[in-house]
């Protein structure tokens, strides 16, 4: 991180520039391969590939030789899956339905987690989920899952009826309630899942880049000693925010998964 921001500042210094903070252009690095086509491959796509490879490696190592008495790798994998199964799926959905939807929830939780955590890994430094494509894909997975869950449990017509016409309400209220329910269930849910994850990862990255770029500028470029010492403050802030970003990465993965489980539960419950 310091090397990349140092090189950026050195380049800027050659142009006679001052402090260059983070901008949205950081999230659209130049393409490395296939520029101009839809298969454009840039640094962020590379980070996503690495995160996916690590995820697959983790679960492959855990599930390679499955025994009744687990070895170390299998125990780690079981711990991971049990976290989602007991903590999220069974709490929201109950035992049987929870077991059925555990695979999707595990995929969502660990997919989002591995993509988020690349934001603080030293040479990757950008979360795979900080550009809209990835949060959108996971939100669509969640969307399809809760709709299919509802349709499978209640049948198409009954599902729409239970979502759009909640029972126990005098019928004139349905005139305003149904459009609001439709908007809230079928449009706002995937949109907020996407934007929540995207905004958190985007803001986190901008904050970290700001702290470390400021440290770089204050240590090496600034004129007075006072400003140089202020660099120590921004470095400490950088460390603190890195720890905070780890927390946010795990929390956002957890919230995404819990919300998906809750939406499944709301679709599946029959009155």
């Amino acid at each position, binding site marked *: 991180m310091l090397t990349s921001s140092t090189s950026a500042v050195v380049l800027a210094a050659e142009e006679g520039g001052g402090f260059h903070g983070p901008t949205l252009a950081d999230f659209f690095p130049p393409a490395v391969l296939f520029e101009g086509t839809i298969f454009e491959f840039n640094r962020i796509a590379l980070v996503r590939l690495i995160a996916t490879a690590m995820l697959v490696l983790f679960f492959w190592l855990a599930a390679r030789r499955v025994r009744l008495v687990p070895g170390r790798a299998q125990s780690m994998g079981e711990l991971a899956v049990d976290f989602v199964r007991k903590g999220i799926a069974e*709490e*929201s959905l109950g035992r049987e339905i929870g077991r059925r939807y555990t695979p999707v929830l595990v995929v969502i939780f660990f997919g989002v987690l591995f993509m988020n955590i690349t934001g603080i890994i030293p040479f990757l430094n950008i979360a795979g989920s900080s550009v809209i494509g990835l949060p959108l894909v996971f939100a669509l997975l969640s969307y399809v899952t809760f709709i299919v869950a509802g349709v499978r449990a209640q049948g198409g017509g009954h599902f729409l009826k239970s979502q759009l016409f909640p029972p126990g309400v005098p019928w004139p209220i349905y005139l305003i309630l149904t459009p609001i329910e439709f908007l*809230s269930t079928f449009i*706002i*849910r995937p*949109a*907020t899942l996407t*934007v*929540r994850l995207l*905004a958190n990862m985007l803001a986190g990255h901008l904050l970290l880049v700001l702290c470390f770029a400021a440290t770089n500028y204050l240590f090496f470029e600034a004129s007075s000693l006072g400003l140089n010492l202020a660099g120590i403050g921004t470095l400490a802030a950088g460390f603190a925010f890195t720890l905070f970003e780890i927390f946010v990465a795990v929390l956002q993965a957890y*919230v995404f998964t*819990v*919300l998906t489980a*809750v939406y499944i*539960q*709301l679709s599946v419950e029959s009155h």
Partner: protein
Amino acid sequence: MEITGDIATIGYGLATIGPGIGMGILVGKTQEAVARQPELAGPLRINMFIGMALVEALGLIGLAAGFVF
């Protein structure tokens, strides 16, 4: 004196007040309820997440609106 800049930032700043207070009340009340009946922590937490999804939606709509308009 002339102030320049984007009014969307001020707009979004104001828009976070409501959801912020709402989230605070939500989480605070859940804390209170769990303190009274710790055995209901699971269902209460689930309800908190349902409420959070709806309240946070307003904050996120404010953020998106700043970019769209």
